């Protein structure tokens, strides 16, 4: 609580009310009005100005019903008029002092309030600064987590396409292995028949009769055919394994100088076994200069684009793989006669996680991976498509 003795509404002593007024000038004025005995004294009787002669008549001065001092002088009728004048003076002075003090109190309170607000604002600003600093850190942490997850997905996508490839290839290899195995067991029977023939000869049987009786002419022809077929089948397996080798270095990339047409040939060979009846895979390879690249990675790009194209055409249509050298760039183009894409879709296909396939059927990272690999080779990849007009992806690689 404010000290009542210091507020603007405190009681003022006469001395305080006269502060700032020249007491000499006041004494001179009073003596002019009330003669040489004129004087002003406070509530305790102490003289403030003029002469305080005990004999002169006195008049009390009141402020709010309280005597604050007295005025003395003569004659008595002038004393009263002079008191009224002094009352007016005191009133004016009191009014002035009260307003001054009130104003000071109000300003001080306003200033305190402002300082308080200022301190609050500073504290609030500090809070926001801390928050901002933390926010950056937290966002950084979240981004790191998301990036980590994305990298995992990205790697998973790479491996997923290899996995798909493996499934297709297993089928391809199983087929020749199947008939080679069957040929070998037939061959086993033929060898047994030759054993029997040999036994007959050793028993002194007629050789020609025995040969014909066992239809060994046919067997011999079939045996040759069977060996030729089996060799072909083994060659096919060898070729597939050779094509597969192009993908073997995905995780330990080594740069090699290659002719990209060979890579395209392998990739086409790998998918050719899975192409439906109504779909034609056309190849138009132009002359290409040797290219220093990561062949395993580029194979993955081509495989990805080719798989997309085959999916786009479905059961019927053409997929064309072409290559050419134009203005210092190798252009590989994989085009399909599928349904094509609307412009808004085409604009987003390279975005991570964008997919038009059902949930679970694609990660939406295939083309992102493809684009990243091509960009890592200093090239770029683009698509030209329209609804109903198919789609053509062009990979441009600087030589």
């Amino acid at each position, binding site marked *: *609580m*404010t000290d*009542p003795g210091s*507020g*603007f*509404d405190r*009681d003022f002593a006469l001395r305080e009310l006269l502060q700032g007024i020249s007491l000499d000038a006041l004494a001179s004025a009073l003596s002019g009005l009330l003669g040489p005995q004129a004087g002003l004294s406070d509530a305790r009787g102490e003289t403030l100005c003029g002469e305080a002669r005990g004999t002169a008549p006195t008049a009390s001065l009141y402020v*709010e*019903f*309280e005597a604050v001092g007295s005025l003395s002088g003569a004659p008595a009728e002038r004393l009263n008029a002079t008191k009224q004048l002094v009352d007016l003076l005191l*009133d004016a002075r*009191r*009014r002035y002092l*009260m*307003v001054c003090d*009130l*104003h000071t*109190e*109000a*300003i001080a*309170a*306003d200033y305190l*309030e402002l300082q308080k607000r200022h301190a609050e604002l500073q504290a609030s600003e500090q809070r926001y600064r801390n928050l901002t600093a933390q926010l950056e850190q937290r966002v950084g942490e979240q981004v790191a987590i998301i990036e980590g997850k994305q990298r995992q997905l990205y790697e998973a996508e790479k491996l997923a396409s290899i996995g798909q490839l493996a499934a297709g290839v297993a089928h391809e290899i199983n087929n020749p292995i199947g008939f080679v195995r069957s040929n070998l067991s037939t061959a086993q029977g033929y060898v047994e028949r030759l054993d029997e023939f040999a036994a007959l000869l050793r028993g002194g049987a007629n050789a020609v009769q025995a040969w014909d009786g066992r239809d060994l002419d046919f067997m011999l022809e079939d045996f040759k055919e069977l060996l030729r077929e089996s060799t072909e089948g083994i060659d096919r397996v060898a070729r597939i394994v050779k094509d597969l080798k192009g993908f073997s270095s995905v995780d330990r990339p080594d740069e090699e100088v290659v002719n990209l047409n060979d890579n395209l040939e392998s990739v086409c060979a790998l998918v050719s076994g899975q192409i439906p009846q109504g779909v034609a895979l056309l190849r138009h390879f132009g002359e290409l200069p040797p290219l220093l690249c990561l062949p395993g990675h580029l194979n993955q790009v081509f495989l990805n684009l080719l798989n997309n194209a085959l999916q786009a055409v479905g059961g019927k249509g053409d997929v064309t793989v072409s290559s050419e050298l134009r203005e210092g760039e190798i252009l590989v183009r994989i085009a399909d006669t599928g349904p094509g894409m609307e412009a808004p879709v085409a604009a987003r296909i390279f975005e991570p996680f964008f997919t038009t396939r059902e949930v679970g059927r694609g990660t939406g990272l295939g083309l992102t991976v493809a684009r990243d690999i091509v960009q890592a080779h200093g090239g770029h990849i683009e698509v030209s498509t329209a609804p109903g007009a198919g789609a053509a992806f062009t990979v441009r690689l600087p030589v």
Partner: protein
Amino acid sequence: MAEYDEDSKRLTVKLVYYGPAQCGKTTNLMRLHDLARPAMKGEIMTLETQHDRTLFFDLLPLGFRAASGLLVRFRLFTVPGQVAHNATRKAVLSRADGVVFVADSQRNQTVNNGESFQQLAENAARSGLDFEQLPLVVQFNKRDLPDVLSEEEVRQRWRHANWPLMFASALTGVGVRATLATLLGVVFARLDGAYDLASRHGIDQAAFVDGALGGVAEEAVR
């Protein structure tokens, strides 16, 4: 709490008229100056005004001397009502022994009344007054104007408040004395508890109220 000076036998009671801008605080004081008939009555000190609006405060001193010789002084202050002068309002309010909250009865002033009353509570707390314990009377002024809230509406809205509700028309003087008399009754109860006014100075509640207002019946000045 009131200023009680045992040595100089003086009790000073500070009463403040508080309320929104132009609700009639100064008019209340001017009518009291006309209507009150205490033993001692000073002139109203009206401080510089701007377009009839109080800048600092008005002060009306009233007083009486008890048989015991105790001088009882009432200092009636008004605060400046304009929103911008809150620091001045708070300074005038500090050390108050009682408050008349003057509300404007006109329907379109309800929000201003509410904001001003809210600020009164805040200012009281900030200047160290216990608002719950502070003697307070709420006066709904300007009853003479059209489109004012009816008394029923006012009572309905303030039914959960414990403060006495008064209705007045300060311009004509109606209810002005009654408002102050009601506040003085509440103030007396507290001061008597603190200073034994009845037993030591022979001042009972009626004498206390009459000492400020005089025994003259309320009259309209217009």
